[in-house]
């Protein structure tokens, strides 16, 4: 066995379902490879707290930092500091990050957004009014998905119509619920809702069901089976798409070790994880094709 490295993954916030699943991937990687890989995250999804953690990790002299930033731009200086201290930095969900050794993306964000729109269009029969949610107006990836989705609709589904502008759920299910209720009041003909934060679809679906409109309004979006499950079963949520955070983390850590060992990532490499069998490399951004759709039919195959 080669040298043992300390690799720490810094996530947006500790303890939520998404990053708990990611931690499973980190743990699996540690078990498989014997590396000292762990995961940490702040108590609330605040860029400032994430910066503090990375500062401390630099002082602690870890070998590699892998990071899922709340606000990629805000982290550049501290990541640069890490690179300057000879620490390997691998990003995830931060394709625009500059101060990283590599960045691993599960997929192309624009393609994913377009895919979500395809799902929504299918659920709505390619016509009618729809609305979109982002977690925060300031969240970059959410906005990329939604912008790409809207572009796709304009391009391919002319009979569909976006009502109101992007709704902000503050990543809070209660807010998604309230906003959806308002949407239903303001736009009685609403037929579809697309969510971005993992709790958006659940809040929206509950609001739709409470209004007795489960058969008329269709919800799709990004989420996890454990969150959206009850509403996928009841049929209000037609489909959710996501990528498996555990697999992403596994690949991220693998890339980190490669970089530490001085190996280069090549275009078309196989990382041995589903969706990352043939990655593309552009600059330092490694992109897979790792999105997964979950519908009523395959819901039972997921355990997270």
């Amino acid at each position, binding site marked *: 066995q080669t040298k043992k490295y300390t690799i720490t993954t810094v996530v947006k916030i500790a303890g939520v379902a998404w990053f708990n699943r990611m931690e499973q991937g980190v743990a699996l990687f540690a078990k498989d490879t014997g590396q000292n890989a762990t995961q940490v995250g702040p108590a609330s999804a605040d860029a400032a707290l994430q910066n503090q953690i990375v500062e401390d990790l630099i002082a602690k002299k870890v070998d590699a930092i892998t990071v899922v930033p709340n606000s990629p731009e805000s982290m550049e200086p501290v990541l640069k500091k890490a690179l300057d201290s000879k620490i390997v930095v691998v990003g995830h969900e931060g394709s625009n990050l500059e101060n990283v050794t590599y960045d691993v993306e599960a997929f192309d964000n624009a393609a994913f957004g377009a895919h979500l729109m395809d799902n929504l269009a299918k659920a709505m029969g390619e016509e009618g009014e729809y609305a979109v949610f982002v977690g925060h107006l300031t969240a970059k990836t959410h906005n990329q998905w939604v912008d790409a989705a809207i572009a796709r609709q304009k391009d391919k589904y002319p009979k569909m119509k976006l009502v109101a*502008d992007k709704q902000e759920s503050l990543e809070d299910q209660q807010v998604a*619920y*309230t*906003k959806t*209720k308002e949407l239903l009041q303001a736009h009685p003909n609403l037929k579809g809702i697309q969510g971005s934060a993992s*709790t958006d679809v*659940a809040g929206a679906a509950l609001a739709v069901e409470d209004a007795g409109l489960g058969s008329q309004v269709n919800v799709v979006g990004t989420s996890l089976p454990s969150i959206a499950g009850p509403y996928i079963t009841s049929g209000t949520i037609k489909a959710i798409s996501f990528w498996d955070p555990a697999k992403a983390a596994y690949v991220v850590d693998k890339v980190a070790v490669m970089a530490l060992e001085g190996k280069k990532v090549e275009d078309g490499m196989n990382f041995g994880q589903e969706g990352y069998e043939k990655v593309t490399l552009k600059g330092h951004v490694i992109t897979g094709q790792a999105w997964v759709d979950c519908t009523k039919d395959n819901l039972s195959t997921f355990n997270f």
Partner: protein
Amino acid sequence: MRRLLSRLATSPQGIMLATGIVLAVLFSVANPVFLSAPNIVDLLRNAIVTGIFAIGVLIVLASGGIDVSFTAIGAFALYATTKLLIVSGIHPPMLAIFAIGIAIGVALGFVNGLLIGLLGLPTLIVTLATLSLFRGALLTFVGTLYYGTIPAEMVAYSRQPLLAFHLASGRVVQLPLAFGNFVLVAGFAALILGSTMFGRKIYALGGSEEAAARIGIDVRRVKLAIFMLVGGIAGLAGVTHVTLMRIANPFDLVGSELNVIAAVVLGGARITGGHGTVSGTIIGVLVITMINSSLLLIGVPTYWQRLVVGGLILFGTGLPIAIERFNLHRARLRAAAGPTVTVQAPV
């Protein structure tokens, strides 16, 4: 009748009611749907958890203290209760589930009460500390995992409407049974505050703690009781939140404390203590809920929403103050009508 009206017009609740009506009129001019039955029912539903919390905050404010830990207590109760049920697999009736949540709340309130009553620490300091402490303890020791599937009793309860009707469009409009919790808590608090000596002692404490001690009120015990009561109310709010959202997420609720306090203060309670009524608090809660959940309806662009919410809070705070100033001015102009203090011939 006129006397009653003029009393109402000069009371804080009355002024807030007027402010709320002004806002409602503005909103319904912007979009007439605002005044439709479904929207009003939605508004009431959205006010439930804030409303229950607000009653607790009112009690603390009336006693001259301030509480910011109630959201953490609510989150603790909501999560610990649900986890307990799920992990143990027991299926008690809904009433017992609420009782568990309330008991957890009372226990945490007891911690506040001990520090505040026994050690005599200032309420803001203690509750700011326990806000952090309870939340940290919950997420460290109880868990962080989100439960998307909650116990069947809770789901069944959450599906029961207190009031429901169908619209021609096929829409269902329903007010969940949980609204009853809000009504019960409000009624209970009105009774306690208005008609029991314990309630009057709360106001007495808020008026002057020194004076209360001097007439033999056991200040420590009353404070302990207040924080246990308020903890219980927060616990109930937490469990109610679970049934409304049909999830148990330990990250929920914390962060909304200032919003709730704002609602109570808007309703006429004073940060400095001794004042506030249940009716005023209800009005305050409705106004805040209205502000927070009507922007889309009245067509405020998403990018402007935070700004507008802030602006409306300022408006909602400022208008009553302006009205009160006007009332004072008017009262002075009318003061010549008759002396308030007269000294009669000696007995």
